[in-house]
């Protein structure tokens, strides 16, 4: 699909032997304020094109912007959650360039006076270690409209017959979060990149400032990558002293998995060029999700000149210390700390907690426990069939469960049926299948399918007697004290009872009769 010939890439491990990667990530987040950044237009996603516009966000002659105070509050909260300093006085600036999807032909942004600066986010990696991502700045700006290029092969402007522009998105509040160069990650750079974007997404979700839906573009990532010669361990002083190489910026990498893949690809591509004696062209690159490669975008020289100057149509933003502290008081518990607290509350091992986190099931389990289930049961049920099926569908567990109408209350109810002795494990699994199939609540499914442990001890006792009589060898072993052999008899008893018996009770009876 790309007209460019595929670039040469170096094997990743080989590349890591020769080079040290440095990354910089720029993440754009659309705030989910009710109205746009500088006007009163609504921000809902997916509306009829050009139905959410006014003179201001269309950039009509004479129109003037007014800052959305809610967006400023969100920006400050994001800054605080990223451990940033909050500017006591800062201005918007105009970033001047011509593009049809930008109504004023300048973007109202912030330049050298960001609302938040100098922060960090500690990111937990899969092995449980922590990488600190230094945040350079978080600033406020407005989104552009959306160009739709009609005709041509790729949906890109090149080769298109004509283009359409939807200005519904123009003026939606954006926060751009820019990291400092991320050094010292070594071969784990792609993992670190993914973990950072993931942690940022969790944080923004916890702050309730954005939908953070990468697939809808409410969170977008640009990944800068450069390589420098490898001279030592990634975090060694001599390695950190090596000057940075030329970077490329891969635009619009719009899923967590793609962030990891795109960084990894660019590292291998740079390595092949540098190893062959070539040099890296400073440019933007397009990420192709389907083929897993990047292709050349526009050449980006340092001389690209946006002629920034302070936006004269807006007054400076000057939050008082009291305002900032009041907003600080509204911050949720940081996701990392929260996880540690929950792990201890739930009594999970590190490994168990990591499984839960990787499955994206922390909130589900929290709600399930709140609904009355034990932490162990909540984990067992969520990470079982629902998780497996979500994976198979390529969805995250939350979205998948929501799509099926499976709720934490259902899982708690299911656990309750087991604890009360109405269902055993295998029956509970059948009930869950029924719930997943949309047959109703766990109780309703159990009722409809007639699933209930037989409470009649007489029937169970008869089954036990029958099985003991049919297996004299095994019975003898148990009498000799080999209790483990009881398992074989329990299985047969359960079969005799068509599964509708309490295995624990069967075991008790067998042992009582043979000891």
């Amino acid at each position: 699909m790309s007209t460019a010939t595929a670039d040469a890439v170096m094997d990743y491990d080989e590349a890591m032997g020769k080079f040290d990667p440095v990354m910089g990530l720029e993440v754009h987040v659309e705030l989910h304020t009710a109205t746009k950044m500088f006007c009163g237009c609504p921000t809902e996603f997916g509306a009829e094109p050009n139905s959410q516009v006014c003179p201001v966000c269309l950039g009509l002659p004479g129109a003037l912007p007014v800052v959305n105070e809610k967006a400023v509050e969100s920006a400050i909260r994001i800054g605080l959650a990223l451990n940033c300093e909050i500017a006591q006085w800062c201005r918007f600036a105009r970033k001047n360039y011509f593009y049809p999807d930008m109504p004023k032909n300048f973007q109202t942004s912030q330049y050298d006076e960001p609302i938040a600066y100098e922060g960090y986010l500690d990111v937990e990696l899969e092995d449980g270690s922590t990488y600190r991502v230094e945040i350079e700045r978080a600033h406020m700006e407005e989104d552009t409209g959306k160009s739709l290029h009609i005709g041509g092969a790729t949906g890109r402007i090149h080769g298109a017959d004509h283009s359409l522009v939807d200005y519904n998105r123009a003026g939606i509040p954006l926060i751009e979060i820019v990291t400092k160069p991320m050094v010292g990650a070594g071969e784990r750079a792609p993992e670190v990149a993914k973990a950072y974007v993931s942690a940022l997404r969790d944080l923004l979700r916890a702050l309730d400032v954005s939908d953070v839906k990468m697939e809808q573009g409410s969170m977008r990532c640009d990944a800068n990558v450069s390589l420098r010669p490898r001279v030592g361990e990634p975090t060694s002083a001599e390695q950190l002293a090596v000057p940075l190489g030329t970077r490329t910026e891969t635009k619009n990498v719009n899923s967590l998995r793609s962030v990891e893949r795109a960084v990894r690809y660019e590292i291998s591509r740079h390595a092949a060029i540098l190893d062959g004696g070539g040099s890296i062209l400073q440019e933007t690159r397009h990420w192709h999700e389907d083929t897993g490669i990047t292709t050349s975008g526009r050449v980006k020289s340092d001389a690209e000149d946006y002629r920034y100057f302070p936006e004269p149509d807006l007054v400076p933003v000057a939050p008082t210390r009291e305002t900032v502290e009041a907003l600080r008081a509204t911050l949720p518990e940081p996701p990392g700390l929260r996880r540690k607290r929950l792990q201890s509350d739930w009594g999970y091992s590190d490994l168990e907690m990591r499984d839960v986190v990787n499955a994206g099931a922390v909130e589900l389990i929290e709600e399930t426990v709140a609904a009355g289930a034990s932490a162990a049961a909540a984990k067992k049920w969520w990470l079982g069939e629902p998780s497996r099926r979500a994976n198979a569908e390529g969805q995250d567990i939350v979205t998948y469960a929501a799509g099926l109408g499976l709720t934490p209350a259902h899982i708690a109810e299911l656990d309750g049926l087991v604890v009360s002795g109405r269902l055993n494990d295998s029956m509970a699994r059948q009930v869950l299948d029924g719930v997943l199939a949309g047959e109703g609540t766990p109780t309703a499914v159990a009722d409809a399918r007639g699933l209930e442990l037989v409470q009649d001890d007489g029937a169970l006792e008869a089954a036990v007697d029958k099985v003991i009589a049919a297996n004299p060898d095994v019975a003898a072993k148990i009498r000799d004290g080999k209790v483990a052999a009881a398992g074989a008899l329990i299985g047969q008893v359960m079969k005799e009872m068509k599964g509708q018996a309490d295995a624990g009770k069967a075991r008790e009876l067998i042992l009582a009769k043979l000891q």
Partner: protein
Amino acid sequence: MTDLPTDLTRATAADLAGALASKTISSVEVTQAYLDRIAAVDGQVHSYLHVDTDGALAQARAVDERRAAGESLGALAGVPIAVKDVMTTKGLPTTCGSKILEGWIPPYDATVVTKLREAGLPILGKTNMDEFAMGSSTEHSAYGPSRNPWDLDRIPGGSGGGSSSVLASFQAPLATGTDTGGSIRQPAAVTATVGTKPTYGGVSRYGLVALASSLDQAGPCGRTVLDTALLHAVMGGHDPMDSTSIDAPVPPVVEAARAADVRGMRIGVVKELGGEGYQPGVRARFDESVALLEELGAEVVEVSCPNFDYALAAYYLILPSEASSNLAKFDAMRYGLRVLPEGVDDPSAEQVMAATRDAGFGPEVKRRIILGTYALSSGYYDAYYGSAQKVRALIAQDFAAAYGRVDVLVSPTAPTTAFKLGDKLEDPMAMYLNDIATIPANLAGVPGMSIPSGLADEDGLPAGIQILAPATKDERLYSVGAALEAALVDRWGGPILDRAPELGGAAAAKGA
């Protein structure tokens, strides 16, 4: 109440308002009288780019009906007005004197226009201006220049020459203006009319097509100080749609104009504004006015504002910088002119933008866009835009120091009387120098006014005196302006516009 003249167009807005309030006349009568006058003389003066006969009469009728129904109406209800073509008017063309906006009908009203409509002022039409308010003569209008009613071969000032000539030729009793570096005050001076640039933020900028956002200020234009004050009170006030709008009531301008009292006021004559380069006749009328103010009981001192010498240079960096960005939106994509490049099959959006901007902007606009683009470029920003901002701060300091000593400052409004059409068209620097006395107020955001000071001896053309006050103290302009106006009219034996030549066509049409 004063008796109205037979020719209603000769009445002041204040007198018309009184007669309307007492139902002596109707708004339809007044509006029709002005529409007749426009039909008779605008062919010579070319003040209007668009006359809205039907709309104006419909608004006049609506006001008359509201009055008949006993509704309580604003002070100027029923008095017609001309609106500078830089203000958006819903359903009426708004071109800013530029080809690039030819045919554009705004879907919304500027806040000022909304206020005029709510106050019941019928809008006669849109007045001519230098393209995007860049100029001091209206010669940069893409639709041809307006002419000075005192001498049709001369300029009516700019950029608001349409509004000034409309007043001086009695084609409207009131007009709106915008003043970025003198576009209300200099046209007032060269046509013997009155114009005020309020404190920055005193009148909403929402719906004013921006030239330089940090300098632009809309304001009232009239034939008398009181008329101008009445309009100021209608136009002014806080607007939540304009972030730079002042959140405070309009200063008591009408009260000040009615009191017309300068006794005990300290008035500073700005040493840097009035020396070399000022026409002797302009200078003489100014000196007489200052002497009159002293006779009226003011204390007059000389004040030095040394950094004013750098104002013009700073202004011509800040203005083009902001303008280059403000005018970027005119790209043929969404409204206005669209020109396809010649000899190009399948032109790209970029090529259409370039062709349209090339065809749609006049030479002065292009000159300033290029200047501004250059001044904002990385590597030049600090030297140009950055330094200009420092000068701006120094000028504000000069004003602050001066206002520590005096209540208002005065100077000639413009260095010369109206020059001949074409005289300075090929010499941008000479054109820019027209605004040398008016620019400092825009850089500092303080209010300023121009009123007629008399006719220069050497050419018999009007000269103006400028009054400047501290920010938010706009009422002081009216105290001084009204007191001086009364003394001058007394000395002249009648309004100065009575001395303007009768326009030929009008004489014929009116049988005067």
